[in-house]
């Protein structure tokens, strides 16, 4: 044990860190039977309960309601005047994969190669990233951590933000397959390719993707045939890429496609029509408001943000803020995400802007709770305050979209986590730096 500590200090010195900056969270979480009383419960799926009670037993919510007998086994948390929400889910983040984006050796989200369906964010997710505690104390309890290179980047994983191993943190290892379709529109004024070049590149790239998927379908059929009756058949070689596509082709794992402008969205809608064996999610979708009806009709849910500048010179300045609301109004299932890594904690403010600019608070809360849970197929565990669901929730002193609101307690998998992070520790150390004990 002692040796280990010395090693840690040496490593810290090597990186030029002060010992304090490397301070770890030493507080332990609380776990067991916990009762939260007196709070306004924002269940998301069953309305709001004033002065309600939540019982947590282990990793599970066992009761949500107004009246319950609370035995002495329960640790009580009096949350009178406070608000309880299901843990927010950031449905598009680099958390765990990227530590410092400008330092390439700390960036693990971009594997080489064009087609990597067999890569899992889960594998490289660093449970000890400094950003994980920074994020979870803000009430974001779960993220979809995604890889991002090539045409098929790999599988994004749904990860809870408490735990010491990816295994204990993973809600769903195969949260979604991440795919990048080429863009037919060209990249705007900074793109100096000719129209023909753009078209040619687009078609070539699209054909590669189509070919890959066709091959995967063939592989799946072949393997199914073999698996159904192996007798008299030579076992086909195992292909990890193709194997990783099978759950996608079975419709079990959705495919996330990043699209932004109108043309990209329409192209993608056209493309997915030809692939109706798969389920799709759009990410980005900054011009979704221009084609919201079409997206809704196709039944494609979206992962989107609000805090960015308009995509066209002549767009109204508030269009990005209104975009999620306009899509939701048209019937699109919307999840609001951070599209961030170290500041995944800002998910609430992305949603707050949507709430303010047309979506309304209730729908915006859904967009960071039950909607992403449903989109990634984890709504049996996450996304609302319901008995039987996993205890991911937080207690706030007000509306969590308000920057002035404080998040007071956070539960993840039933653990009432220490409200601590390196950022908080730095505050504690440096607020009154030169103070001494007397």
């Amino acid at each position, binding site marked *: 044990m002692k040796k280990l500590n010395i090693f840690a200090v040496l490593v810290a010195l090597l990186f030029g860190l002060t010992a304090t900056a490397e301070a770890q969270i030493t507080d332990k979480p609380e776990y067991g039977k916990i009762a939260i009383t007196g709070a306004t419960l924002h269940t998301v799926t069953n309305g709001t309960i004033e002065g309600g009670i939540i019982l947590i037993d282990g990793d599970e919510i066992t009761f949500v309601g107004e009246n319950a007998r609370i035995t002495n086994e329960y640790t009580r948390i009096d949350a009178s005047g406070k608000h309880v929400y299901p843990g927010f889910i950031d449905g598009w983040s680099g958390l765990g994969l990227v530590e410092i984006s*400008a330092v390439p050796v700390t960036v693990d989200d971009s594997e080489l190669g064009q087609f990597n369906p067999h890569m899992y964010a889960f594998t490289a997710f660093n449970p000890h990233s400094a950003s994980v505690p920074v994020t979870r104390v803000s009430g974001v309890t779960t993220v979809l951590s995604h890889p991002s290179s090539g045409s098929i980047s790999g599988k994004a994983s749904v990860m809870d933000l408490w735990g010491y191993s990816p295994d204990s943190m993973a809600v769903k290892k195969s949260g979604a397959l991440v795919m990048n379709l080429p863009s037919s529109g060209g990249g705007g004024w900074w793109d100096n390719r000719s129209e023909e070049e753009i078209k040619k590149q687009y078609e070539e790239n699209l054909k590669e993707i189509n070919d890959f998927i066709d091959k995967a379908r063939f592989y799946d059929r072949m393997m199914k045939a073999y698996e159904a009756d192996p007798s008299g058949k030579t076992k086909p070689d195992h292909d990890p890429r193709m194997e990783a596509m099978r759950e996608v082709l079975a419709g079990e794992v959705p495919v996330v496609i990043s699209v*932004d402008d109108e043309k990209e969205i329409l192209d993608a809608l056209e493309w997915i029509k030809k692939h109706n064996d798969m389920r799709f999610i759009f990410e980005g979708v900054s011009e979704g408001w221009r084609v919201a009806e079409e997206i809704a009709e196709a039944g494609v849910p979206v992962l989107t943000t609000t805090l960015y*500048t308009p*995509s066209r010179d002549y767009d109204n*300045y508030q269009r990005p803020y209104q975009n999620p609301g306009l899509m939701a109004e048209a019937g699109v299932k919307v999840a609001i995400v951070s599209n961030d890594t170290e500041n995944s904690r800002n998910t609430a403010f992305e949603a707050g802007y949507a709430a303010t600019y047309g979506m309304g608070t209730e729908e915006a809360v859904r967009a960071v709770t039950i909607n992403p849970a449903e989109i990634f197929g984890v709504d049996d565990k996450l996304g609302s305050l319901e008995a039987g669901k996993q205890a991911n929730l937080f207690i706030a002193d007000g509306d969590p979209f308000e920057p002035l609101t404080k998040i007071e307690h956070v539960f993840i998998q039933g653990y009432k986590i220490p409200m601590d992070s390196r950022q908080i520790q730095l*505050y504690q150390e440096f607020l009154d730096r030169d103070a001494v004990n007397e």
Partner: protein
Amino acid sequence: MIAAFAFTAQAQDKGSVLIQNATVITVTNGDLEETDVLIRDGIIREIGKDLNAPRGVETVDATGKFVMPGIIDAHSHLNGVDINEGRNPVTAEVTMEESVDPNEVGIYHALAGGATAIHLMHGSANVIGGQGETLKLRYGTTQEGMKFEDAKRTIKFALGENPTRVHGQGNGVQPRTRMGVEQVIRNHFDEALDYKRKREAYLEAKENYDRRGRGTPPVPVAENLRYEVLNDIIEGEIYVHCHSYRADEILMLVRVFNDYGIENYTFQHANEAFKVAPELAKHGAMTSVFSDWWAYKFEVYYSTAFNASILNANGVINSINSDNDQLLRTLNHEAAKVVRYGDTSVNDAIKMITLHPAIQLGIDDRVGSIEEGKHGDLAIWSGHPLSIYSKAEMTFVDGTKYFDRENDPDDMRIQINPGADFDDGSNFREITTRRETDACLQDAFILFGEQSAHNHN
């Protein structure tokens, strides 16, 4: 491109308006409820209850609404034609005054977020970059018309990773280390002082020879723009705004400035300023920081969203800046995060986007608070400006209304390219997200090569 010049507002357009019955966040004198603010000819003339509108002055009923001084962003690259003259480690002679694009539609977007002034800065590629320009967001005027008249002159310095990467790693010229950064600054100050001595001696000898015909003619010493500016810094005519992150490099510059007698300076970004807050307070150094950006590069890895609160508690004059065209639209909520994270008071947080940046830009005698005699640069908010549910409803500069939510057409371009049809790619802008962290190194990517051409700040 052709500008349509749809607006005809001019710098000298000073407006008059009576805003009635608002909660007035004065910044310097508390929040005044049910209070009127009278602006005449661009100047706040009266703050009080039940003021009468002088003849011909428009009134705005702001019952239930809030009036806050216009947000001032101490660090912006919003409408720079170019940002980085990144080919030399020292380019004090260039100035953003000559790199202003008055037609950038983002100016209007910023007004819609309640902002009225920005500090348009040179980038951070160079140890001593170009001079900055403080602008009022008078959208629709000229580059001259946007200038904040008689604002203090400013200049950008930059320490740490950016200049060492651009010049040391990129061009193979010093500095490549933080050691080199210090010496580049000292060497240039020393050269500037030598220049000044020689130039003054020459001018004196020239005068003697030309006018009095005495002695032999001197060998001319040409006027040198770069050294002139460096001397202006030493003489206190220019405020320094220094891009910096690490605590040690911040202290380095404090030492250097002490040696040259430079007194008025602000550390920009300064993610680790909280670690040396007592030293900064002692030397009167100021800071202008992000609310919560961190971890995008190594030198900001050990930083915290509590930075602003620690600095404030230690008596350092701190502002919250955007350095980002999106954050500029929502700086009120960036300030709110200071309250969220470090329990700073609401009024102190508001100071960080109003009075404090004004102090750092040398314009606090005219803007940054709502006081009689100050400029009529303010916004009317639908609710308390730190609430996520509040929207700027009207924004005034010099008492002239530049944004009105009630009259807010979609297409606010004033520069229109007749060659671009509706769907043409040239109408698409690069989207800036809340976390886009490369504005400071705009134009300088080219120096690193493609591999690292993103994610720099």
